């Protein structure tokens, strides 16, 4: 039995059905050499007949949906012709239109890049987040055959490869296919859905006929029912003698302690360590690992799950309002590097001007939209209505937006 036997492609259909879309290169060449008008026509026609040929955005057809646990699903996707293979550990930004509003969420690719190279497929694995708009929408409204739109792969939570002298480095010249030969002893530590980027790394390494270096996974979950990829992990462990994994159930054994960590991995100082989970979890793991001799530069982290801050009240109609006292904070304008303090009473436009910037504006009364700017983090309130502007809306009218707490704007 080959290590690929129950990898993604074989889990739900005959992979020979899948061939990368033909004449991709020719179409790309035509597209690149044409002007904007023709590109528009091209995408228009493509979207009419075969959306996977469209060029401006990356479409992905849902080929299959796998229930991993009661609240986690893997979406197997066939991306359009302009997709390029990812590096294990990278994510995509998934676009979902809900009630006319486009939302973006990052989801890690959970498969090996070879799935795309050999079968033209990729996968993302999505856990329902309580109250999460996009994750629940993906679970409830998407079925096989529908299209999603995704970004190109992104993120630098990828495996460091060993150079010939044994020092870790990320060498772009090492082909991803040979990744298993160039990776040193590794320790993967995942909490909950943090397993997804790590699964992509493990799958890409497991594709090798025999793993040269030890590979350990410590997987922290609430209970055994929450283990994603359980069968596949068992299978890889049976095929690869150098791969081992341990599942730590917090419902049985409490939080992972430093001592337990030391038991699971006795040679911390020799390992490349990849941690993925909530912020506090990763802080704890990093500190513990360093105390056990791990090189700080050998620890890579990927944050899963962002904490919500601010004293926000949710009204009965679902809209959110905020107490004036909780609104002070620091406003950063990333284009200019300026930072100002905000008490919550001045508009973003006034604050930008206070910072000595020269933002574009028009009516200063919420009418003309000339002062639209790009919010990169933080929240704002519409001063005209007193309502909080939804987090998804990152283009905001500066003249009628008051920051709530810390805010970053990239436009000025």
């Amino acid at each position, binding site marked *: 039995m080959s290590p690929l036997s129950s990898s993604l492609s074989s889990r739900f259909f005959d992979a020979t059905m899948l061939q990368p879309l033909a004449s991709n290169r020719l179409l790309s060449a035509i597209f690149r050499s044409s*002007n904007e*008008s023709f590109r528009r026509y091209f995408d*228009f026609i493509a979207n009419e007949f075969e959306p996977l040929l469209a060029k401006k955005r990356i479409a992905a057809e849902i080929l299959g949906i796998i229930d991993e646990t009661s609240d986690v699903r893997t979406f197997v996707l066939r991306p359009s012709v302009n997709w390029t293979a990812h590096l294990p550990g990278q994510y995509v930004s998934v676009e979902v239109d809900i009630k*006319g509003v486009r939302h973006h969420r990052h989801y890690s690719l959970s498969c090996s890049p070879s799935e795309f190279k050999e079968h033209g497929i990729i996968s993302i694995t999505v856990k329902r987040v309580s109250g999460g708009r996009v994750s629940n929408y993906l679970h409830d409204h998407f079925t096989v055959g529908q299209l999603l739109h995704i970004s190109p792969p992104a993120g630098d939570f990828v495996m460091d490869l060993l150079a010939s002298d044994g020092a870790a480095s990320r060498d772009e010249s090492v082909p991803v296919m040979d990744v298993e030969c160039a990776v040193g002893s590794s320790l993967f530590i995942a909490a909950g859905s943090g397993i997804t980027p790590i699964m992509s790394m493990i799958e890409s390494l497991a594709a090798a006929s025999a793993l040269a270096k030890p590979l350990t996974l410590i997987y922290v979950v609430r209970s055994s029912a929450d283990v994603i990829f359980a069968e596949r992990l068992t299978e890889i462990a049976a095929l690869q003698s150098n791969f081992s994994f341990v599942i730590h159930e917090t419902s049985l054994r409490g939080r992972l302690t430093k001592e337990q960590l030391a038991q699971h991995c006795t040679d911390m100082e020799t390992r490349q360590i990849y941690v993925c989970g909530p912020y506090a979890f990763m802080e704890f793991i990093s500190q513990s690992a360093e105390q056990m001799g791990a090189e700080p530069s050998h620890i890579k982290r990927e944050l899963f799950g962002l904490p919500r801050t601010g004293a926000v009240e949710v009204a009965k109609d679902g809209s959110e309002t905020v107490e004036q006292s909780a609104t002070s904070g620091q406003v950063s304008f990333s284009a200019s590097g300026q930072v100002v303090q905000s008490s919550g009473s001045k508009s973003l436009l006034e604050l930008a001007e206070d910072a000595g910037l020269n933002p574009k504006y028009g009516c200063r009364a919420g009418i*003309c939209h000339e002062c639209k700017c790009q919010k990169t983090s933080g929240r704002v309130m519409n001063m005209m*209505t007193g309502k909080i502007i939804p987090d*998804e809306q990152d283009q905001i009218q500066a003249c009628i937006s008051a920051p709530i707490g810390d805010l970053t704007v990239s436009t000025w």
Partner: protein
Amino acid sequence: MDMKTSPKHLLMVDELDAFGAELDEIRAEVLADLGERDVQHIRHMMHTQTLSEMAGRGLIHFSLGPVSWAAGVGLLSVSKILENMEIGHNIMHGQYDWTNDPELQSQNYDWDNVCTADSWRKTHNYEHHTYTNILGKDRDYGYAVLRLTDDTPWRPWHLVQFIQYGMLSGLFEWGVGLHELEFDKLKSGEVPLKEKIPFLKEFAKKASTQLTKDYVVFPMLAGPFAPKVFVGNAAANLSRNLWASTIIFCGHFTEDAQTFREDECENETRGQWYYRQLLGSSNFSGGKWLHIMSGHLSYQIEHHLFPDLPSHRYPEISTKVQAICERYDIPYNTGPFGKQFKTVLKRVAKFSLPAIVRRGAA
């Protein structure tokens, strides 16, 4: 606020506050209801526009006779009108910014017009929509070439202002594109030419892209048939210009559309601002496609009250606005398209003569 042309409709300040609050409520209702239906509308429009553009350009290229060529010109005209009026104009107003869709963002969109998107948003969204019909501040009022009120001093060349009107209509996109140049202020020396150089550079870039597309690239693709493509594209641009100008003139220059003095509008409240928008704008009635082809500027009143609400909502908003107007005894200026346009022509004719001459003749 003192309305010189229609003193009988004076509203008290507290009445205006209540009036403003009622309009704010309409706005809030629509904002709360925005959703998929609005995206479907604009996407449907964009789809129809691209289809008619492709069919139009195709027919012009491969026409076998004058009939198929004319049909191509017609389709391309429809496409250009749809793109400028219902799609570009409305997207650039920020009507779909809430969708978060980069293709529907006011700050990203650029339209099929020689006017740069930046200049348009400045002269139209900001100046015209904020200072609507305030003489001396709304430079769209008469476009600095037409005399449409006795508050504009009469000059002998106003006698033949129908000629200027015809030229402005035929070359409308160029007039709009060069609006920011403020030619009258340059001539009087109020603004030095140096200040306008960045604008002129941007304008030249946009205009050359537009000219290259319609008058070089597409004609050349037709090889020996280049001339018919050249003429066809020019005809489509001309018909779009005439149409856009006519629609816009019906929106603010009908007989009863009012004008305002700068001093009347200082420190306006929201209610007063709404009131001025209402009195300075005029609607026209018609079928669904007349509204669409006018970019829903047939609901100019609603557009001026709520410039950033999706335009296809104006018909339903209009019913509510009319009911409010009735209660406050505010005139709601509307009528059939032909009738409204006739009053525009009447106004252009009327004010080509100085007041004293008109009184003498009467």
